[in-house]
């Protein structure tokens, strides 16, 4: 019996260990695959041409700057919309709303998160983009802003759900202590509860932003896909082409092993590095702040 248990334990321990490592192994394998398919670009396309402003692959113009700027612009736009709104909804649900409102609203918000992005893109194409064109008096409604609004909609459920969990996990004694010291409800939320849940809220924001930078179908349908270099936030009102939409639109027809194929993988590599940088920075910030907090307490 004892031996049997040891054996079972051994297997289970190994299995769990493997699951833990597998996440890392997969990411590393994906990274090496991207390197293998993407790096030949550097020998096939001169760096000056690669970081140029014209993207027209069928005539060998491989400038990826407009694609990078397009992705960044749409993602920043989505974050500006989704972060305040998402965190606001989470604070309302966790701190202010009565129990029954929370129990009704939270599943609804999560349901919104399950909406297929192609459906959202279709709504954007047929309803949001014509409306934006008329309201803002634009040449066309297929703009970065349309994409940012829809991506904000995609990111909000993630942000709400995870930051609400984080706020909920803050011990009740924190709030009681703040209120007992004479803080108003708003002061308690803003100065005590939210900072205490900081790392969870930041994770929520990162996941939400991560979802929007990687989102493909919706942006492909509503941003117009014109490879125009975006310089500032005012370019939100003009069409853009994102990295994800470029890969999705062109990968299907490209000849295996051609320069165009390698450049598309190179774009994938850039996308991978951008999300890596964002994640590492975010966790570094959380880590540093936690250390500072510990120093103050000790």
């Amino acid at each position: 019996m004892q031996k049997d248990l040891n054996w079972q334990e051994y297997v289970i321990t190994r299995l769990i260990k493997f699951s833990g490592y597998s996440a890392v192994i997969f990411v590393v394998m994906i990274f090496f695959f991207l390197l293998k398919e993407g790096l030949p670009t550097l020998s096939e396309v001169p760096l000056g041409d690669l970081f140029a402003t014209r993207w027209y692959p069928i005539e060998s113009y491989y400038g990826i700057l407009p694609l990078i700027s397009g992705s960044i612009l749409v993602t920043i736009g989505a974050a500006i919309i989704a972060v305040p709104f998402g965190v606001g909804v989470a604070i309302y649900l966790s701190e202010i709303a009565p129990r029954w409102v929370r129990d009704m609203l939270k599943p609804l918000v999560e349901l919104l998160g399950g909406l297929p992005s192609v459906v959202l893109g279709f709504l954007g194409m047929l309803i949001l983009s014509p409306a934006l064109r008329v309201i803002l008096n634009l040449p066309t409604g297929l703009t970065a802003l349309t994409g940012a609004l829809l991506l904000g909609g995609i990111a909000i459920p993630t942000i709400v759900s995870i930051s609400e969990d984080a706020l909920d996990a803050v011990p009740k004694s924190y709030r009681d202590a703040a209120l007992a010291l004479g803080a108003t409800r708003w002061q308690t939320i803003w100065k005590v509860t939210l900072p205490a849940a900081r790392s969870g809220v930041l994770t929520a924001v990162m996941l939400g932003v991560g979802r929007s930078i990687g989102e493909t179908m919706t942006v492909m349908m509503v941003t117009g896909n014109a490879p125009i270099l975006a310089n500032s936030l005012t370019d939100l009102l003009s069409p853009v082409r994102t990295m994800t939409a470029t890969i999705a639109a062109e990968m299907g027809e490209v000849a295996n092993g051609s320069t165009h194929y390698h450049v598309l993988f190179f774009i994938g590599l850039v996308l991978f590095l951008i999300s890596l940088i964002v994640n590492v920075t975010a966790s570094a910030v959380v880590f540093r702040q936690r250390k500072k907090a510990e120093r103050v307490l000790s």
Partner: protein
Amino acid sequence: MKKTLVILLPLFFLVSCSSLGTSAADSQEPQTYIENKGSDTIVNLALAWAEKYQIDNPDISISVTGGGSGTGIAALVNGTVDIANASRQIKQKEIDLANEDGIEPMEHIIAGDAIAVVVNPSNPVNELTLQQISDIYSGVYTNWSEVGGDDRPIVRLSRETNSGTHVYFLETVVRLGDEESETLFSTNTLLLPSSEGIISEVRQNPNAIGYDGLGYVPEDLNIIAIAPEEGDVYVLPSVESVNNGTYAIARDLYMYTNGEPTGEIAIYLEWILSAEAQEIVQELGFVPIN
């Protein structure tokens, strides 16, 4: 649930019996195989024809594959296919190569393909020359007033670069058929992934101009009449204007055989030109001949 099973089971049995019956009958008859390969533009049309023809002639089996016009003609030269599909005419170099191997490519025009240029119904512009369309798409004109319309910005719509229609439009319209030309689409041309995307944007946006295969364009949009040169007659795309060559953005679609076709291949090609087969041409958005 159980009830449906009870009903479905005998049905299944019936279906499997009947399919057994036909396959037994099939195996008794000699099969004729026709290999058909080439242009990706034509592949859906060729498949639709093959499916219809095989239903009416169960003893004939037609295999259709794409790969591009060049691939199809190369396969004909190598003698591996019976019919090559091509969206362009065979080049002299390819004919020479074929003759070396004792193969005489013979051309059959099987359908027409026309591209319609469309604008929003509220746009007063009805007529453009090829040069004007080229200048609109390459970014020379940016306002509709420059081509006789309202004072509105021009929003250019195009299919994605991987679409055969995009490449054809680039060569024939933007570059006006000049092979030396390096003119490109303006960078702020919107590249939409589907025909539906172009149609819905043109339908609701008075600034937009777009293009698509004639068969995909609904009647509620304003179709532009096109003149090849300044001073020529402006022509709307239609079955007649495509067939008599007056509409500028149209091309023939071809099938090539080795010499005068014989036997089942000749009968198949004859059927392709029949009214029944040409009806399928229209359904798929191409232009029927005759």
